[in-house]
């Protein structure tokens, strides 16, 4: 899913850079407004996890592989804003140090995987949660389904970018069908990895799962009540 340099015209890539800067800027501001102390090391851990697991390409069809994008995984664990920053950080490290994803395509990749994948994917997660039972196992399933959908959303994001600034004369309809078809399969892998990971964290430290905060027993503030009996 990492777009290399050259696939998309410079004009569209620069426009995507602007959207990406906006996405990261808003996410940084929102995160600075809302984050909890314990989320700082957790977000670092999530970014490192996404980096490592993105290296684990799994085969999906003859001669084709896929890997985790991690947007919903990150957003459900640390919240959408920190999650989008985690994915953007991974993409920046990959482009600058690993030559994975073009440097000029960084904005495009942030739009697809952080804006659509993490923020968009978290919106899907929230929508699914509204119509499903509020239990811990169901939250894990909701995250898995949203993760799968987010991969297809990211692949459609690429298609829009390709439609706007694709270099070469290729049938857009064929690219759409191929992108969505293959990324549906990759989305199944994304759903499995996301479900297993969120499920594991829920088993060990459910209090660290942002997307399931509403299921945690609330801390009550008990003030000494003025003696009414008597």
């Amino acid at each position, binding site marked *: 899913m990492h777009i290399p340099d050259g696939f998309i015209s410079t004009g569209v890539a620069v426009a995507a850079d602007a959207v990406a800067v906006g996405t990261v800027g808003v996410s940084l501001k929102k995160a600075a407004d*809302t*984050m909890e102390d314990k989320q700082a090391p957790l977000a670092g851990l999530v970014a490192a996890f996404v980096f490592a697991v993105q290296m684990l390409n799994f085969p999906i069809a003859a001669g084709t592989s896929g890997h985790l994008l991690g947007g919903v995984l990150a957003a459900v664990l640390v919240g959408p804003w920190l999650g989008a920053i985690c994915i953007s950080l991974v993409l920046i490290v990959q482009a600058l140090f*690993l030559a994975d994803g073009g440097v000029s395509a960084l904005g495009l990749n942030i739009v697809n995987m952080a804006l659509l994948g993490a923020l968009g994917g978290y919106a899907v997660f929230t929508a699914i949660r509204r119509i499903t039972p509020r239990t811990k196992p169901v939250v894990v399933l909701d995250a898995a389904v949203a993760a799968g959908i987010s991969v297809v959303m990211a692949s459609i994001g690429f298609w829009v970018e390709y439609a706007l600034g694709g270099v070469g004369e290729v049938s857009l309809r064929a690219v759409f069908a191929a992108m969505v078809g293959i990324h549906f399969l990759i989305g199944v892998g994304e759903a499995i990895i996301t479900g297993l990971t969120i499920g594991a964290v829920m088993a060990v430290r459910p209090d660290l799962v942002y997307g399931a905060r509403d299921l945690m027993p609330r801390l009550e503030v008990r003030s000494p009540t003025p003696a009414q009996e008597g």
Partner: protein
Amino acid sequence: MDRKNLTLFVAGGLIVILGLAFFVSPLASKSPDGLNRVAIDAGFADTQKDSATAGGPLAGYQVKGVENESLSRGLAGVIGVAITFGIGMILFGTLRTIRARRRPDEGSEAASAP
């Protein structure tokens, strides 16, 4: 939650992550990923240009100078994890500091839970 448990969780998590990067990543599929497959089949793969960072010491998840491909990939993964975690800790630590300064009376973690 208590800080000691959180430190333990992060340390344990890091060990798992480093293990995935070093031991499992060399076993990953080397086939082109979904996007590259589409590019090859649809016929626009040749429009790809080399990344500006393609000459870097970790380019393509291979550590320059380490001949063994699996070892090289594993090491590149470990270094990449270290870079990502390092920058992340600085960045997220800074965000936490900004938040704490803005709302000094809400510094503790339990108090800020919505």
